[in-house]
Each structure stands twice: as C-alpha cells, then as structure tokens.
C-alpha cells in the first residue's frame, strides 16, 4: 500500500534544546482520510508539519511525501495553512489570488471569489489594512481554494473567536474533497473531533498512538476531548 506521508527514524533537534523536538520511529498516513494531529503546545506538531512541507531539514531519518522527498512535486500536491500570517501584507487580495493561480495549477479562482463574496471582503483591499481575523480568513480561503491531494492545516482554529471557528470548520468541510487527505493540527479537540477519521496523539516529539477516532471512542467510552485531557493531564 502506498502512503501519502511516510516517516522512518525521523528526528529533528534544535540547537536551543537538549532533547529532540521530534523523534518518530515509523509513521504512515494513507490518502483519503481526515487526520487530527493532536498534542499539547510544544509537543512537536508544527515541527512535523514543517518537515512535511520542506520548511525544516530532518536531523536524521527520512520523510517522504507523495512518494518522494519534500520538493517541488510534493509542494504542488500540498495545500498548507501555517500557524501564522505569511502572506505579503502589501499585496491586494486580488493580487494574492493571481499569485496562487499563477503558481498552483489546482487553484480555483471561482471558488476563491465565491468564498470572498460570502465574507463580504473587498478584493481590492490590501491585506495589511484588514484585521488579523480577516487576514486569517483570507489565508484559509486561498488554502481551501485549491484541489490539493493533501491539505495541511496548522492550528486553523487557535486564536480564533468561537463564532469564527464555526466559519473556519464550515469552510474546510465545504471545500475539502473526499479523495484528498486532511491533516489538522490542534490542541482544541472538542471543536473538531466530530470530523476526524483518524487521530495521531503526539507528546514530547513522540507519537503516542495513531488509530481511528471511532476505535478510541469505543474502547475508552468517552469523547476524544475527554480522552485527550486524561492522556495529557498535567
């Protein structure tokens, strides 16, 4: 069976920390699933996501995405929403749409326009003139306007008010195609647990478990959120 993401003996160390930020012996993520990457702050979620996207270089081991090392081919297949504002604030929203259309063959302008009109945001507005919340929504709109094989959303609902969380989740679900894989990293489990097929629990850079959300609920007799609180209790 071919997997969308495969990691073997993967480690990542930072100079500032004595222990590895990530230490995964083996991990395979298949296609067509909604996978939650769940763990407390500093558990290694973002480090893993950055390694998948080629934004970090592994200290040792290897990671393959869509059958190859992170590179132009895998990047064409991944639609990535980082945990920060990363778009140039000086650009107008319509220019950002052109930018994404120019570089990503799977980008749908029609889909982006329709999401923007629903948000009632002027496409002529410069990004930096919008509120932080609106800028985050623009990033989400651009990410979800692609027909990607793999969507990677790093903390898409962290720092977002409860009303906007609903919009974010609706946007993700409405624009995500069934044959794609969705990897969502978060520590706010209750908000997203109903949409997850599989769950990866991560702590101190190590994978604690990787199984289906349903099997956890059946085995533990509780929600993912309750189980998460039990596993990661301080």
């Amino acid at each position: 069976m071919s997997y969308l993401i495969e990691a073997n003996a993967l480690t990542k160390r930072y100079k500032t920390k004595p222990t590895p930020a990530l230490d995964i012996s083996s991990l395979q993520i298949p296609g067509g699933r909604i996978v939650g990457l769940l763990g407390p702050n500093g558990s290694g979620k973002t480090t893993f996501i950055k390694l998948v996207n080629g934004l970090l270089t592994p200290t040792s081991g290897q990671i393959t995405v869509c059958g190859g090392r992170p590179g132009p081919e895998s990047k064409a297949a991944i639609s990535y929403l980082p945990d920060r504002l990363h778009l140039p604030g000086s650009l107008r929203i319509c220019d950002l749409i052109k930018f994404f259309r120019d570089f990503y063959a799977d980008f749908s302008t029609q889909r982006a326009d329709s999401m923007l009109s629903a948000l009632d945001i002027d496409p002529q507005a410069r990004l930096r003139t919008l509120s932080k919340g609106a800028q985050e929504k623009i990033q989400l709109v651009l990410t979800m306007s692609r027909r990607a094989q793999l969507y990677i959303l790093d903390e898409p609902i962290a720092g977002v008010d409860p009303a906007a969380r609903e919009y974010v989740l609706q946007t993700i679900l409405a624009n995500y195609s069934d044959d794609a894989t969705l990897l969502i990293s978060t520590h706010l489990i209750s908000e997203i647990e109903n949409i997850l097929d599989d769950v990866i629990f991560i702590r101190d850079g190590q994978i604690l478990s990787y199984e289906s959300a349903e099997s956890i609920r059946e085995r533990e007799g509780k929600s993912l959120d309750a189980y998460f609180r039990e596993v990661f209790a301080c």
Partner: protein
Amino acid sequence: MLKKLMKYEWKAIWKVTLVINIFTALATLMGFFITHVIDLDNIPSSAKLVTILTVIFYYLTIAGVSLAMSLYIAIRFYRSLYTDEGYLMHTLPVTARQLVLSRLLVHSFCLLLTGTLVAFSIFVVLLPLLEQIFDGSAVSFSGLTFSTLIAALDIECRNNLHISPLLFVLFIAIAYVISAFCGILSIYCAIALGQSFRHRILGSVICYVAIYYLQQMISSIVTVPQVLKQLSEFNSVTYVFNLFFTISLLFLPIGILFYLVILYRIDKRLNLA
C-alpha cells in the same frame, strides 16, 4: 516558474528602485547645474552656502544610492525567504535554484541600473573637470567633449590593447555584470550562512563582514602586482582593462562558489524559525 517568480519579485522591488533612481537623477541635475552652468570662480558670496550644500547633497546621494540599493536587496532577500513570507515562498512548487535565480536576476538588474546611472552621473557632472585630470596624456584633451573622448578611447584601445573600443566597452560591461552578480551573491551567501546562528540577522552581518574582508584580501593579493606594474608605465586604458580582467577572472569562480553554498543551504539546510 522562473519567469513568474521574477515577475513577482520585480513587482515587490520596483517602487524602491524607482525612488532610489529618482534621487540619483535629481542629484545629477543639481551636480550638472553646478559644474556646467555656474561659473565656480565667480560665485556671489550669498550663493556660496547653497552651492556647497548642493555639492554635499550630490556626493552623499551618489555615494549612498548603490549602498541603499544593496541594503534593500539584502533586506528583501532575507524577508522573502527567511521570515514569515518564507513560508509562502518555500512552499511554492519551485526549486531552490529558481528561487535564488529569480532574485539574483531581478536584483542584479536593479543594482546595475543604479550603478549605471551613478556612473553616467559622475561622467556627466565631472566631464568639464576631465580636461585637467587627463592633462599630459598622450592624447590631447583640450576642448573635451563626449565625441573627443570616444575618439581618444578609440586611439588608446587600438594603440595599447590592439582591440576595437567596442570590444573594450563590451568587456568592461561583462566584467561589470560579473562583479554585480558576485556582490549580490555574497550578500545572499552571508544571509544563508547567518541562518545557522542563534541571532540570525546578527549572524548574517558577521558572515557578510567575514566574506567581504576575505574577498578584499584575495582581490588585493591578485591585483597589487598589476598596480605595481602600472606605476612604472602608466596607461589608463590598459590599466583598467587588466584590472577588470583580473577581477572578473577572480570573481567568476567566487560567485559560482557563493551560488552553490546558497543552494546547499536552502535545499539541504533550510530551518525556518
């Protein structure tokens, strides 16, 4: 993809390039007025301060524009590839080579444009003074104009280098482009190496200073014999030709080395904070 990257890099940088070059043009106009229009020997005392301030503005602008352009290029490279914007650039379906080349070509164009304007400005402003500078040369420079200067260059090239002046100018232009590429690549290389420091900006500055001094040391070792040789039998055109030839031969492999280091750092050692 390279063309698209270049297009967006140009869109990001053209406004600052325009402002810098407008300053150069303004300074040139003022310098031209001072050296061509005003009779410097008979300036009224009331206008002396304005004249001095204009000359100072000209010198500061001409000395500062290339530096300002280089600094902006450094900031632009750092911001687009190593700050939050790097999350966008490094997740585009492009290679590290395309990312670096697109910036190198656009930034070189901007730096060369500014450098050419500065050279043109100095030439235009200082043309009336060249007569005194070249006094005693084999060629008569009395009543110097642009056409007489070209004629003088023609004679000097054919007599001393045995090449046409066009070939001489072409060679100088190639050497100029190589040195601009190498200068920009040394900035990129310093920034790429500086990312391995805990304080990344300070690390980049330290790396740049180290690279700069190393480059200066190597080029001094190579060019000093040329300078000493010219002291005994000075000929301006031969001197310029030999100096540019030596520096180009030296800068080409150094530039290629910088380019390979940058690619390695982006492709194999990228660690976005």
